[in-house]
Each structure stands twice: as C-alpha cells, then as structure tokens.
C-alpha cells in the first residue's frame, strides 16, 4: 500500500511554545489511522497541519514538510483551497451551517463551481448515502439542518465533507460530543469509508482506536512516540511510555 501523506521533521510553534517536535510519519492510503495521546500532546494540532487549518491562527509557525501525494503542501505555489478540497475535515462538535440539509451538502460543490441542478442533486444524494444518513433525511432535505439530532448532524457534516470528493478525511474527535449509539453508528460508517477514503482520526478513546483503526500514532508532549499497526501496538508496544498510556497508567 502506498503512502498518501508523509510528514518529515515537522515542527510547529504557537508563539514561543513548541507544540510539535520533528514529527516524521508515513500514512498509508485507504486505511484508518488513529492519533492518540493525552490532552495537549499535539495530536489535534498535527491533524490540522495536514489541511493547513492552522494557517487560520496568526501566531502559528511551521517548519519541516508535509507531503500530500508527494507534494509538499507548505510550498508557496500550493493552492490551499484545492488542498482542502482533497483533504477534508470533520470537527469535534457537529457544526452544520444554519441552512437546509441540502444546502449544507451542496455548499462545497457549489463553492467549487458546480451549479447544474441535476448534478448537484446527484452529488447530494450520493454524499448523504455514503454518510449513511440518506434514509433519515431524504424527505426533509429542505428543512434546517439544525433540527437534526447531534449524531445526525455529525453524519451530515461527514456527508458535507464527502460531497467535494476528497481523498483524505481528517476527523477531530468526531464522536466525543455524541451518545454511545450515535458513536457506534459513526464508527461503522468510518469503517465503511476506508474503502474509498483515507481516514485520519484523533480520538481520546483507546477502545475506539482499537475497534476501528488499522494504524495508530501515539503522541506525547509534542513528540511522536510510536507509530505502527494498531494490533501490534496495543498487544506489544515497543516504547515503555506507549505501554504506560495504553494500559491506563497515565493520561
């Protein structure tokens, strides 16, 4: 399997505070990679470097490189909007726009220039089906997205991310604000999605990492301590600190 995202000696500072230290990792395509670690370890920060969402924070400084399909995304000639179309993102708190369900999903395609009604209909339906929410919303596409439950809103946000046909979907603790039933539906969904997409998911929940991910990266205080196949890491961690964390000795 080839690697779709590779980072090399990636360092990131918030002002004077170094949040990522020389992160070097290769993420295989069409797989699920979980980023785990205690709060403040840099896992969310690392996730956001992959679609340059950290650019929106003025005090952030980045060194090193992140390659997406063998192209450094921190090069000057990179089109950030195009990058974000290919590397989509789902946030911790469900954040549908205050518009109709249809308009939420159609927002991305419209942004990228698709205006044909039939084409949009098709994209919206496909995205909602891929996000396993079509049957629940097909009769209320014109209703406000804010009327959906939290779990439905999060699946809608996944559909919205899928509608621009990304290759990678970044997920920042997508189930942390949801109840167990919604969480399990989203986990099922994520596992289906890896057939077509590369998923990188930040999670606080180690059981979740074990249940759904193929690879796991363990972060601690801005360092990447260990990266490897999830089964191996959880059954036989190489680093003492990883072992301490996954056995619940700290964190």
């Amino acid at each position, binding site marked *: 399997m080839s690697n779709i995202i590779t980072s090399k000696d990636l360092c990131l500072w918030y002002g004077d505070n170094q949040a990522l230290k020389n992160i070097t990792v290769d993420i295989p395509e069409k797989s699920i990679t979980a980023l785990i670690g205690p709060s403040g370890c840099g896992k969310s920060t690392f996730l956001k470097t992959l*679609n340059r*969402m950290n650019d929106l924070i003025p005090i952030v400084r980045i060194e090193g490189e992140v390659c997406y399909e063998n192209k450094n995304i921190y090069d000057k000639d990179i089109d950030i*909007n195009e990058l974000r179309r290919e590397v989509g993102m789902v*946030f911790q*708190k469900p954040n*549908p726009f205050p518009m109709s369900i249809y308009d939420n999903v159609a927002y991305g395609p419209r*942004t990228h220039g698709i205006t044909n009604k039939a084409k949009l209909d098709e994209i919206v339906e496909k995205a909602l089906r891929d996000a396993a929410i079509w049957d629940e919303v097909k009769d209320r596409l014109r209703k406000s997205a804010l009327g959906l439950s939290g779990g439905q809103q999060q699946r809608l946000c996944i559909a919205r*991310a899928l509608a621009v046909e990304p290759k990678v979907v970044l997920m920042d603790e997508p189930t942390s604000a949801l109840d167990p039933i919604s969480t399990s539906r989203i986990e099922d969904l994520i596992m289906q999605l890896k057939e077509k997409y590369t998923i990188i998911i930040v999670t606080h929940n180690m059981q979740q990492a074990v249940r759904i991910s193929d690879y796991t990266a363990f972060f601690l205080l801005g360092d990447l301590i260990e990266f490897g196949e999830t089964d191996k890491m959880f059954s036989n961690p190489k680093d003492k600190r990883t072992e301490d964390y996954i056995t619940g000795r700290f964190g």
Partner: protein
Amino acid sequence: MKKNKIFEDIVHGIFLILGLITVGCVVLITIYLIISGLPAIKEIGLINFLFGKQWASTAAEPKFGILPFILTSIYGTSGAIVIGVPIGFFTAVYLSKVANKKVRNIMETSVNLLAGIPSVVYGLVGMLILVPAIRKIFKVPDGASLLAAIIVLAIMILPNIIKVSITSLDAVPKEYEDASYALGASSTETFFRVSVPAAKSGIAAAVVLGVGRAIGEAMAVMMVAGNVANMPSLFQSVRFLTTAVSSEMAYSSPGSLQRNALFSIALVLYIFIMLINATLNFFLKRDKEK
C-alpha cells in the same frame, strides 16, 4: 431577617418606580400626541391632510396637505439607506472579519466618534461644504436640496449600521467559518455565504435602526435641505416631517389650526417611528430565538 426583607421590598419599590417613570413618559407622550394631533386631522379631513399636495399654512386661504413632507421623509430616508447601508455593511464585514486588530481599533474608534458628533455639526459642515459643492457640481441655483439631506443622513446613519452589524458578525460561531474553510472555500466565499447569512437578522436590525435615525433627524436636514414645502425632487429644496414641525412651531399661535396641524404631523411621524420600532423588535426577537 425581617429587617432585611423590608429593606429588599423598599429597594424593589424604588426600582419599580424608576422603571415606571420611563413607561409613564412613553404613555403620556403617546396620549398627548393623539389628543392634540386628532382635531386638525378631523377638521382638514384625513385624506386631504395625508394626501394633499400643498402646504400653505399662513396663506389667506390656508392649505394643509402634508404629502410633500411624507414623501420627502420617505425619499430622504430611502436615499440615505441606499447610500449608507452598502458602505456601512461592507465596512462592518471588513472590520469584523478581515481587518487586523490595530486597524480595527482605530476604525472602530472613529466610528464611535462619528456617532458622537452632534447633528448641528453635521448640519453646519453640510451647509458650508456640501451645499455649495452640489451647487457647483450640478450647476443648480441652490445646493440646499434633497440630495444634500440624503448625503448628510447617509453619513449620520453609518455608525449605527456599522456597530450593530459588527456585533452580529462577531457573534457568528467560528465553527461555521472553519467548516467552510475546511471545504476549500476562500475567505470571501466564507464571509458572504456563511458569516453574513448567519448574521442576517442582526444586519437587518442595523438597517432598521438606521432608518429610525434618519427619519427622526431634524436639525441637520433643516440646515441642508432648504426647508421649502415642495414636492420632493433631488435638486429642489424640500421639507421633512421633522422640520415641518420644528420650523413653524415658533410662530404658530396656540389653538390655531396651523398649530394643531403641526401636532398632527408629529403624530404621523410618531406612527412611522413606532412601525420602525416594531420591525426592529421583530428582527431582534427572531435573532434571540435562534
């Protein structure tokens, strides 16, 4: 314990009285305006009064038609809105979403200063600069005109529009904007397709507030509009509802039909303002329910 309770009751009572003073003023003004505004309308006839095209209160055969004032107020306010809202709105978007902290601080301070300038100063500057400028640029005999009033009003309503719009744009959750960026939208697309629609009731409230300020303004427009009871036309001297009352009040004799008609004009203006306030409340309430 008991003593405490009495003290609390007294404080409550004082607050209640203070609150009632405000309410009382509104009620008294309303009743007073209705009582003193109705007789002239009755005498002149509602249709003649509202739709009469001529106002000649001191002529041998007096005419009391206030259509020129009503239309002038409506045109003047609409003109101010047409010019002021786009400027104010884009300024608000810029300050809330694009400008860096330093620029925003400086510009917000000047907006606040603009809000604090007394209207007589607006009038004065308009009279000395704007009126002659209009006379020269458009080669009209007199620059004191509806156009001058529109421009002055447009500037006067800017602070209201900018401040209220900024507040509602600032309140748009960052999550909405992040989601838009993460889908590959540019900042301009994000501002106009996500932030502005999310803030639309607040922005609508800003516009209504601007309308209220413009339609109620008397001093500045009196100084730049020429104050002649013509039917409104861009380059003619005109008289607004507000200035119609203030300019004749001083020399109308108490109890005369002229003075009563002035009260009726005030009543019409009052009804306009009430309608605007009701609209404003509608938008604010809708904002809150969200």
